[in-house]
């Protein structure tokens, strides 16, 4: 009698526990970012904003999120090993992250083969949503060509006819400039010269600036990021070139993350990017305030990418996805209005479709700030060799 009662009680408890477990969905997220090395500050921005995004929007989804963080050290083999660990050992439902295109290239086959959805929170190389596209890889950040293409037409509209380009000689540098060059020449402009300083080996840009000066161009268009961007902008100013040859470029040149280090040299430089902290819309105002309150820093484009990754994940979960296959199918369908404006994913490539903002760096009351000059409408990337198979169900 007693044992029967005990058994009934145990059965009741167990079934209640199972029922409550069924209600609380736990989504396990693998966050792969550089926490050491040259890009550690970018990784940190993305991480902080991703966590902020989950805090802000996560409650709406009815699910709880567990985040497992791994450091890829910006090294492809390390990134691959950590990816395998996240997928096979930690058994995450979704992966987020990847700053470096090299790491993305290394893990692409593993992620695709294992059927794990990946939200790309930075890496911009065109192939990831081109020839190497995958139904499991959704990019919420940007593609290299997407950020530069609109400047081609815009510069022609400003009356610039001849341009000299400078960018570091590596895959990203080439993609950025090639996209600009194609658009600029198609709009009627002329590229009178190009320089490709050795990537991460050049610290002195004097020789290239001398060439640019001698070329007779109306303006100079460049791509640099990180430490190289700081050196380049300062050296450009030190040669007194801004007056005769205005400096334009891809927005990473004067990213909010490090523009202060450039000082007055950055004033007057006009660049284009998918996000600046001074965008005037209610979502951005809320985001900037929340990010500043949490970290004490002004958010950069890297931060907004992390924030929007969290938002995209939550939107996918709200649509009912809870496991790998469902998330992989739901992520390319998300669309929302965030700090960057209206965002959606292009199903042909799984790349984000977003407006690009042209802005000028000017001196403001609290330091350097960005004045938005124009917002160019959202355009999907050309398919670029992507043959998107249906996600296997």
């Amino acid at each position, binding site marked *: 009698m007693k044992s029967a009662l005990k058994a009934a009680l145990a059965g009741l408890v167990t079934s209640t526990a199972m029922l409550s477990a069924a209600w609380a969905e736990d989504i396990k997220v693998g966050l792969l970012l550089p926490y050491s090395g040259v890009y550690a*500050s970018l990784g940190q921005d993305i991480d902080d904003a991703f966590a902020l995004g989950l805090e802000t929007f996560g409650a709406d989804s009815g699910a709880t999120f567990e985040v497992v963080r791994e450091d890829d050290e910006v090294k492809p083999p390390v990134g691959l090993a950590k990816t395998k660990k996240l997928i096979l050992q930690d058994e995450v439902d979704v992966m987020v992250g990847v700053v470096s295109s090299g790491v993305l290239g290394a893990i692409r086959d593993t992620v695709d083969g294992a059927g794990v959805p990946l939200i790309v929170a930075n890496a911009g190389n065109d192939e990831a949503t081109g020839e190497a596209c995958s139904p499991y890889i959704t990019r919420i950040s940007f593609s290299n060509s997407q950020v530069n293409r609109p400047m081609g037409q815009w510069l022609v509209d400003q009356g610039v006819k001849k341009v000299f380009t400078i960018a570091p000689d590596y895959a990203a540098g080439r993609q950025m400039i090639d996209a600009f060059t194609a658009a600029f020449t198609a709009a009627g402009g002329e590229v009178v010269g190009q320089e490709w300083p050795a990537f991460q*080996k050049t610290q*002195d840009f004097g020789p290239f600036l*001398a060439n640019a000066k001698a070329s007779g161009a109306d303006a100079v268009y460049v791509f640099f990021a990180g430490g190289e961007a700081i050196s380049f902008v300062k050296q450009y100013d030190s040669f007194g070139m801004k007056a005769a040859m205005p400096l334009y470029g891809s927005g990473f040149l004067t990213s909010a993350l490090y523009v202060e280090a450039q000082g007055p040299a950055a004033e007057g430089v006009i660049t284009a990017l998918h996000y600046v902290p001074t965008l005037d819309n209610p979502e951005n105002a809320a985001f900037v305030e929340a990010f500043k309150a949490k970290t004490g820093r002004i958010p950069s484009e890297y931060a907004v990418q992390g924030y929007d990754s969290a938002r995209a994940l939550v939107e996918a979960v709200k649509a009912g996805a809870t496991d790998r296959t469902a998330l992989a199918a739901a992520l390319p369908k998300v669309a929302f209005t965030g700090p960057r404006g209206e965002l959606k994913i292009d199903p042909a490539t799984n790349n984000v479709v977003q407006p690009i903002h042209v802005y000028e760096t000017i001196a403001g009351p609290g330091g350097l700030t960005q004045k938005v000059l124009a917002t160019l409408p959202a355009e999907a990337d050309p398919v670029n060799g992507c043959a998107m198979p249906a996600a296997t169900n």
Partner: protein
Amino acid sequence: MTADLGFWVLQTLNALQLSMLLFLLSVGLTVIFGLMHFVNLAHGSLYAFGAYVAATLAGTFGYWGGLLVAPLAVAALGAVLYLTLIRSQRRAGPMAQVLITFGLIFVAVDATRLVWGDLPIGIAVPAILDSQIALLGVEYPAYRLFIIALGLCVLAALTLILTRTQIGAMIRAGVDNDQMAACLGINVERMFFLVFVVGCALAGLAGAVAAPVLSVTPDMGLQILIPTLIVIVIGGLGSLKGAVAGSLIFGFVQTFGAVLLPTLSSVLIYALLAAVLVTRPQGLLPAKG
């Protein structure tokens, strides 16, 4: 483009400026090696430390304050390193030295990240040098001319000290044969210490001087290390003339190579290095022989 004299003048000035910066770095390293037979791979890290100190102090003391204090700070660090590590490892052989200084590089990079963070920091060029000077038909940044002038002054001062003073004679004797010099009553240990500390100070000066032009990042020491090593190996270990020759060769090959032969430029300098190592293993103008 190549017919334009202004282009050549501009590039020559760029090459000279790069050479002078490398000279400041390499002269310390080469004399330390020539005298003490100690190869210090962490020399680049000292340069980075100088840049960080200058950048930090520039906020409160201005650029010139930073420029003055940075070499002293690096010299102090050098003194500590010498007394704790270097002195005991002087006769340990090249492999041990390479490994220890390699270990120092590891520690230095992480220590820099710990204290100053991962973000690159910038330092402004001082106001009086923040302009362009018209020279030989081109407008050249005044600050870069300052770097060239500073390098030449240091070169002149070192030449004077080494050739015209007693301490200079002692140093040259020590480079030639340190044991014989010790027999002659020269306090070789004290000389080593002095040379090491001055070499470190020069590295710190190079860092402080370079900071406004290049950006200050945790791996700037690693980035400048290979060019510095190339300079002293091509130029010849142990001699001032070698440091000058090596710096000029590197500066000019790198600068002109980058714009005239862009695809070959990165391989070119290493090919040159290999050629020197094969034909004249001691370098072009070594201290001995």
